[in-house]
């Protein structure tokens, strides 16, 4: 039943001269290329692009798409990624011509609907964050981090302060220190306690008048809410620094706790996690940021503003760090976030968080008898189990378990992150899964743990690709397809 011919590379399927489209005759005068471009800009030969008919291309991509796992086909408990179901109505709304078919150079007057929606989203995100101003511009969560840190750079520069350090807990997402480095900071790691929370003594030792920002993920990557957050924020603020909240885990506290209320000065949202946008589908992503009023003048341009019932893009912001993205950002995923927020309303958003936490705690109760969960019996939206003892006793690793779960029809949890737990499996069920699904997942895990360890090393056995050679891929990466040399 599987069509292995159509899933060959397009280059391998190519036949010279084959076409999918007939272009109409040009209705403007044509000119030779050489007259339009300098010779130095012209290649000697056209690029070797594959040549195929339309049905071949459609079969290629359609068959490839059936080889994937997705939230539409499988339970996907990928910790930290909040792989919740993506409601189909959001797709329909994002595809409305007034949303999907506008052009960035249209005059504002002809874009009032979309601009009103974006303005509303700015306000909703500010309310959910408990902060004052929002930029929808960043194109991903990590770019949101970078943008917020550049805002902090501009803020401190304006105040005449030199603060070269960003503090990051050792349990943080790798993007935090990476964003700090890209914004020109030196990032300094703050240790966690054995319980997985910020080590306050270590924070105090590293915090001083050189500290610009403390970046914290709360709830953190171990699925725990760091209740010391007020104390942490007071310490950092007293030292003159800012608190950045990595909003990756907002799904756990939506409508219950607001980062601005517990001391955050800036944060990003991941619309594709918290607000049900598709991960890597449906167009490019977004990572809106929210900041306190004192940081608002430095936000990137443009910001959507309302003047006398008329919506416009405001570029006249003299202290702005400038542009971080073209035009008004990636609106597709923002429209979906808006639709999601409006669909659920304030009470519904709160219930989302409550059910995400309930589902995670239920699954934790089912898993903890199978694998140790070092951080205990309670979690927020996700928890981290460890296969360290299993590895020591049976020789089976977290990777082996993850790969074998694929054979049982479940996407694997996140493995080997966070780095503070050995052989970690980070499990986040989200609120959109039923009890039956969670039970089936736990049963599959129990079944796998009863299998001989030696058999697990070869898993998965039922997927189109079994186990790629990660070491060889990292040491000798093939970064570009090359044609076979012609004899």
């Amino acid at each position, binding site marked *: 039943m599987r069509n292995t011919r159509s899933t060959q590379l397009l280059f391998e399927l190519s036949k010279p001269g084959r076409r999918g489209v007939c272009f109409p005759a040009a209705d403007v005068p044509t000119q030779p290329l050489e007259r339009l471009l300098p010779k130095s800009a012209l290649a000697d030969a056209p690029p070797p692009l594959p040549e195929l008919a339309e049905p071949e291309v459609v079969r290629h991509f359609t068959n490839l798409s059936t080889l994937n796992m997705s939230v539409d086909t499988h339970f996907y408990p990928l910790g930290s990624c909040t792989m919740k179901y993506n409601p189909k109505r959001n797709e329909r709304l994002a595809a409305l011509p007034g949303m999907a078919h506008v052009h960035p150079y249209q005059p504002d007057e002809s874009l009032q609907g979309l601009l009103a929606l974006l303005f509303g989203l700015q306000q909703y995100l500010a309310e959910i964050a408990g902060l004052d101003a929002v930029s929808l511009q960043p194109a991903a969560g990590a770019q949101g981090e970078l943008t917020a840190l550049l805002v902090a750079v501009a803020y401190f520069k304006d105040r005449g302060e030199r603060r070269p350090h960003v503090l990051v807990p050792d349990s943080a997402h790798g993007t935090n220190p990476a964003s700090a480095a890209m914004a020109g900071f030196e990032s300094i790691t703050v240790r966690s306690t054995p319980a997985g929370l910020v080590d306050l003594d270590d924070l105090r030792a590293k915090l001083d008048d050189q500290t610009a920002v403390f970046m914290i993920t709360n709830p953190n990557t171990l699925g725990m809410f760091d209740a010391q957050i007020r104390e942490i924020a007071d310490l950092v603020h007293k030292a003159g620094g800012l608190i950045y909240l990595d909003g990756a885990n907002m799904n756990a506290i939506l409508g219950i706790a607001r980062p601005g209320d517990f001391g955050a000065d800036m944060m990003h949202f991941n619309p594709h996690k918290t607000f049900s946008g598709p991960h890597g589908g449906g167009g490019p992503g977004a990572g809106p940021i929210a900041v306190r009023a004192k940081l608002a003048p430095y936000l990137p341009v443009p910001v959507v503003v309302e003047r006398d019932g008329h919506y416009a893009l405001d570029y006249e912001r003299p202290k702005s760090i400038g542009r971080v993205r073209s035009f008004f950002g990636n609106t597709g995923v923002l429209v979906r976030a808006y639709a999601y927020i409006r669909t659920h309303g304030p009470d519904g958003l709160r219930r989302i968080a409550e059910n995400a936490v309930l589902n995670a705690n239920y699954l934790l109760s089912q898993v903890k008898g199978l694998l140790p969960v070092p951080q205990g019996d309670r979690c927020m939206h996700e928890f981290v189990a460890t296969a*360290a*003892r299993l590895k*020591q006793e049976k020789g089976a*690793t977290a990777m082996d378990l993850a790969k074998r779960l694929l054979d049982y029809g479940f996407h694997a949890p996140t493995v*080997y*992150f966070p*780095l503070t737990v*050995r052989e970690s499996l980070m499990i986040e069920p989200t609120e959109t899964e039923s009890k039956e699904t969670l039970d089936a997942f736990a049963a599959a895990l129990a079944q796998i743990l009863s299998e001989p360890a030696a058999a697990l090393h070869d898993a998965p056995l039922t997927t189109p690709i079994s186990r790629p050679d*990660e*070491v060889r891929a*990292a*040491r000798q990466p093939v970064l570009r397809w090359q044609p076979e040399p012609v004899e």
Partner: protein
Amino acid sequence: MTPASFAPQDLRFAPTHEWVHVSAEAGAKVATVGVSAFAVAALTDLVYIELPAVGRTVKAGESFGEIESVKAVSDLYSPVSGEIVAVNDDVANHLERLSEDAYGRGWLIKIRLSDEKELAALLDHAAYEKQCAEEAH
């Protein structure tokens, strides 16, 4: 030039999993530094190592390089302060030396000590083993 493997009992260890062996070379105390066998096993499959240039000075606790596995990138921390007088370039192309012979051909750098007293702060093998046993659970 290839040293015979050291017995782990003769080494000192940093809590960050680097090992040190001190010997006298041309009138100076020189520390050979590597990564413990426990840490190499925990890192799993190694794919890349970045080592410093000879002549650089490092402080105890400072990063002198990076080691990358299929799981993560980790900093390598110098257990002692001083000038780097030798670097094991052979390891970069033969990462298997680390898993095969962590305390011998898998050595990483040699440091001419600037403060011998720092050695007292490091763990002996028994204390390091105890730390590893705790971390494994």
